């Protein structure tokens, strides 16, 4: 088996006349931490949503562990509107809904935390275990599956313990402090037993010290859960700290890729982030 976990091929996402992601290709190997960075509105989250099945791309394909999970080509009205490349390369349509993709072993967090607000931390994580439960509604109601249920509870407690959330397990999610909500969201994603974890701006709204802790935390996660991690991030410190490789997106286009050092010295990236002086000095 190849080492490749995720491969995005020629993804274009076009909303009407707006091209949010333009012909993006990238690869992520096993146990890597790869970051996707770019200024606001560069199309990072859109790319994420295509990978996780929220959007069907206008053109292109996504492979997870060598298996195609999303594939599309411009058709209908889009065919006339479509301005991107590789127009005729893809001819088959594969569409997996987000829940199917999660089942395959890809879990995500959200940019603006999306916990089950009125449920406890424990329930939040426990719900993510539902997908792997074998019981049907009858056997679950009549408690024929009590062994499985017990195992789910134990696994959840274990996971909360690893992520340091045991003390707050009976607290309602929306009453938790911000940092713990972030942790809880990661715990919930991990409860689906993923191979690839997608973090959408995990450091949003954190101060420098919390960001440092987060970096260590993400490193730790990879080791403990044998994960491959794909991060979208704004915080340069965090990205440079944790990434094995970085992809830079600007206006939907990939403008650079490489190790943190290479990216730091890349003129196009610096221009994209700091802007180019108008008189070209």
């Amino acid at each position, binding site marked *: 088996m190849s080492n490749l976990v995720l491969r995005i091929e020629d993804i274009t996402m076009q909303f009407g006349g707006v091209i949010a992601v333009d012909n993006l290709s990238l690869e992520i190997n096993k146990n890597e931490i790869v970051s996707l960075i770019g200024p606001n509105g560069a199309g990072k989250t859109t790319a994420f949503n295509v990978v996780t099945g929220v959007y069907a791309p206008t053109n292109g394909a996504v492979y997870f562990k060598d298996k195609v999970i999303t594939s599309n080509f411009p058709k209908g009205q889009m065919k006339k509107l479509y301005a991107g490349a590789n127009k005729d390369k893809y001819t088959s349509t594969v569409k997996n809904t987000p829940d199917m993709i*999660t089942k395959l072993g890809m879990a995500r967090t959200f940019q603006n935390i999306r916990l089950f607000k009125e449920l406890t931390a424990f329930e939040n994580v426990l719900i993510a275990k539902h997908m792997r439960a074998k019981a049907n*509604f009858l056997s679950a109601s009549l408690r024929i599956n009590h062994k499985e249920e017990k195992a789910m509870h134990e696994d959840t407690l274990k996971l909360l313990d690893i992520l340091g959330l045991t003390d707050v397990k009976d607290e309602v999610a929306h009453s938790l402090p911000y940092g713990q909500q972030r942790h809880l969201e990661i715990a919930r994603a991990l409860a689906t037993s993923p191979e690839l974890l997608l973090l959408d701006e995990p450091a949003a709204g954190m101060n420098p010290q919390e960001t440092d802790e987060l970096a260590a935390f993400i490193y730790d996660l990879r080791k403990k859960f044998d994960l491959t991690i794909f991060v979208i991030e704004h915080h340069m410190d965090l990205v440079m700290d944790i990434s094995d490789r970085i992809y830079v997106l600007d206006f939907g286009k990939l403008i650079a890729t490489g190790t943190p050092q290479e990216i730091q010295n890349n003129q196009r990236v610096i221009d994209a982030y700091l802007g180019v002086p108008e008189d070209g000095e």
Partner: protein
Amino acid sequence: MKKSRKVIASVLLALLILALFMFLDANKARYGMAYTVLQKGIIMAVVAVSMNLVTGFTGLFSLGQAGFMAIGAYVTAIFMIPAEHIQDVYYISGISPAILEFKLWLESLPSWVQAISPYFTLLLGGLVAALCAALIGIPVLRLKSDYLAIATLGFSEIVRAIISSPQMDTITNGSYGLKKIPGFSSMVQTGIIAAVCIAFMVLLLQSTYGRAFKAIREDETAAEAMGINLFKHKQLSFIIGSFFSAVAGGMLAMFMRSIDSKTFSITLTYDILLIVVIGGIGSATGSIISAILVTLSKEWWLRFFDNPLSIGGFKVPLFRTGFRMVIFSIILLVVVLFYQRGIMGKNEFSWERVGNRMKGLKDMIGSKKGGAKDV
């Protein structure tokens, strides 16, 4: 509270309720009003919990309850009316020969079959409604909130229109309705059927599927990202909710002894919605408590306001037929204004909460005594 004590308390409560039912059964003549109203309350509790399952726990604002109840009620009624009364009931256009033959065959079966046939009929009504729910769920469950409410409301009216249409005369007796439906043999029987239905729904809600329903209510996008198939789970909740609504509809037919399509108009759905809102959207025990309270006060306790009242020769105005509904509406307004989340909110009844309340009361009394000493 310890687990063993909780079990003992629950068993005691169940026995107490059973004893009350048996007492009412034995003294039916003396407590006729209590008997009837409580029986209706129990039936409403089943529908209210089933509506709460769909609306409160899964977050699907469905207003189709009356339609599903009608399906259950008509299936139950058609199967249960004894063959000897058939000609009296279908006196206008007669009954379809196939149904009559089936009934005669059913009645020729041994007596133990007769004994279980009411339960079987209720189950059958539920299954028919579940099938309908599965079919209309496919297009309708793609809609969200208000749109879903309107679509299900429409479905409920369609069911009513079909039942009362002249083309259905030989099956549902059209707009003349059905009567002479055999009733419940006892309060205990009503109670046990209701208890089994409610227990199943509560167990489902506490299982991993119930948690998935709640996840969908809280955040669909997140639920889907956690691997929960939205459509499958919404469909499941909708089907099970409709199944139990239909069972309750069958029970209502047995309770009322005679039904027609107007029994299942939109107002019935509103009555149930009211019970769910007062009890707390997302609380099964809240729905049960509120179903009993609302039915009791609407049908019985507030009757007082319907009769003319004179104090010392002075005739109090306003006290006349229909005034009770005014009082009832005022109480509703007050409840909704001051208990916005209903009696129970999203909480369930638990002995721990009762224990805490008791303790709080004790402390309050204790502190008052302490305060008195200081003075």
